[in-house]
Every structure is written in structure tokens, then in C-alpha cells.
């Protein structure tokens, strides 16, 4: 990993890498993880409520709540996945950290 890497460098792979200051990196990691955990758990709770803990017959499933739950889970996933493109200075990609 070289020092002169700047935002938006695309080295080899098509994964976008954004280099941010350490403090921002920490904020991104903490808050995106927090948001992802909360929304995924909330999503599962919503799905549980909608399907009455997966015990309701198909006719009695609360469709809007169920979809809201799945949307919550997806939103959490997307936020977390989005956070992985941010890196701090001198930090390798997680896959080839050794170089």
C-alpha cells in the first residue's frame, strides 16, 4: 500500500476505496455497525411479529409489516456493506493486509 493513494483509487479490483482520516474511519465503523445491528434485529422482530413467530398460516401473515421487516434487514446490510469501502491512511485492504 503506497502513501499517495487518494480517494477513489481503484487498484486492480473494481471495489472502490475511500481513504478517510482515522477519526472519521472510527465514526464510520462504530455508527454503521450500530445502525446495521439495530436495524437487522428490528427487522427480524418485525418479521416475527408479522408471521407470529413463523407459526401463522399463509393467509394470516401481516404483509406490510413483514415487508417492512425485510426492508429493515436489507437496509442494515446495505449500510454495513457500504461502510466497508472506507479506509484510513496506511491501512491495507482487509484481504491483503500484509502487503
Amino acid at each position: 500500500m503506497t502513501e499517495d493513494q487518494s480517494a477513489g483509487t481503484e487498484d486492480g479490483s473494481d471495489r472502490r476505496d475511500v481513504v478517510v482520516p482515522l477519526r472519521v474511519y472510527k465514526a464510520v465503523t462504530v455508527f454503521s455497525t450500530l445502525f446495521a445491528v439495530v436495524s437487522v434485529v428490528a427487522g427480524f422482530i418485525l418479521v416475527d411479529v408479522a408471521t407470529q413467530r413463523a407459526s401463522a398460516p399463509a393467509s394470516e401473515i401481516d404483509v406490510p409489516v413483514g415487508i417492512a421487516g425485510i426492508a429493515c434487514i436489507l437496509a442494515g446490510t446495505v449500510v454495513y456493506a457500504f461502510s466497508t469501502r472506507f479506509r484510513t491512511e496506511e491501512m491495507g485492504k482487509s484481504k491483503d493486509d500484509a502487503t
Partner: protein
Amino acid sequence: MSLERKDEHDHKGWMESRELTPVESVYLTVLIWLDRRLRVVDYLEILEDLYYKVNMQMPKSHTEQYNLDNKFWYWYPLYALGSFSTVAYIVAAISGALLGFYYAPAAAAADGSPTVAYDSVMLIMGQLNLGYFLRSVHRWAAQIMVAAVFLHMLRVYFTGAYKEPRELNWLIGIVLISLTLVFGYTGYLLPWSQLSFWAGQIGVEMSLSIPLIGEWVAQLMFGGFTLSQATLQRMYILHVFFLPFITTAIIAVHIGIVWMQGIAEPH
């Protein structure tokens, strides 16, 4: 943390100097906005600092000292089995003391009708709040303690930790494992169910077949050659009075010797 306000990074200027997609800049702006208000990262940084400090100041365990981490990391829990049996013993002692408030070792008949002892166990399991759980904890703590003690013995054997100057502790350990088994056996008889009764029957026959002192042992431990109220009473007193005192004292000696001699080093 000092009260002095830290030099904040100029996020706005920094973000404008980078080529960020609109999504990225919104994402970062939201997270930085949250961070400015909630300051979660500050508290996590304190924890991080604490973690590294504690970790560095923690004395090395023998696996680190001898660089066994690489290959022997998975074996470390085996070195904790001694503490584990002690802790299981403490859990059993606490839950047993609570069970003792409700258990009565009385009216041991063997005609198939529930006796007072049997009924008191049923009361613990059926009526008492958390009683079923309490009995379950006591039983499992006992079972797990026996298993842990046995595995502890195997660990000591296979790592050669019984060798000079630790022969005495090995002998004390054998006494302790026997006491643990007797503990389990006397406890097994207390509910006075079918299993208890017939396990007691085996016990009487075993002690009767000891050469020379058999009858004397049967009288002393079981209060006669057939199972009766005296048997239950003696098992109870052994289980809650004699064995706890003796075992606790010997465990203290066992641990004290380990403390003085140190953990046997792998060479």
C-alpha cells in the same frame, strides 16, 4: 478525558477536497453528524486504551511464557479444569444449601408409596418457585464437577505434572476424586426413588463383600444390612455434613500446595 476541547477536524473542507459520490458524502455527513452529538467513539477509545493497557500489564500465562500459543492454544482450557472443578463445587454447594432448606430425609420405606423424602423432592420440583431449576443446577453441577475432575486428572497425567515434587498433591487429588464420587453416590440416594434404592442395595452388597471389615463398614455407612430410615439418615449426614467439611478442607490444601509450588512447567 480532558475538558479541553479537542482540535476538530475540518470535515467540510476535507470532504470538498475529495472526489466523493453524492451517496458517500451524504453517508459521511450523517455519520459525522451523529458522532458529533453522541460521542460514542470517545467512550470506545477509552475502552480501547484500557484494553491495551490491561493486556500489556497482565502477567504472562505459562502458554505465553513458553510460546506455546501457536500450537497449544486449543489446549489452554484443559489447564483451567482444576479451577473449573472448584467452581462447579461452589455452585453445587450454594444450590445444595438452598435445596437443604426444603428437603427432609425422613420416613424411608420401600413399599412403592411416596415417602417424606420423596415428597419433599417432588415439592421442590413441583411447587417451589425455581425449585426445579435449583435441583437441575445442583445435579448438573455435580455431574460436570465429576467430569471436570476426571479430565483434570487426565491432563495432569498426560502433561507429567504429577512428577517430583508434586507426588503428594497427586495423592491428595486421588483422595479428592474418590470423595467426589462418594459425594455423588450419597446424593444419588437422597431422593429415595427406585434408582436410589437399588443403587443403595449395590452399595450395601459391595461393602459387605469387603474382606474382614465388610460388616462393620456396612453398619457404619448404611446403618444396617438392609436399607432403612437409618441408611437415608446417614447418607444425608454424610452428604451435607461430613463430606462438605472434609472435601472443602482437602481442596484448600490441594490448591494451597499448587499455589506454593506453582504450575508445573512444560519443558
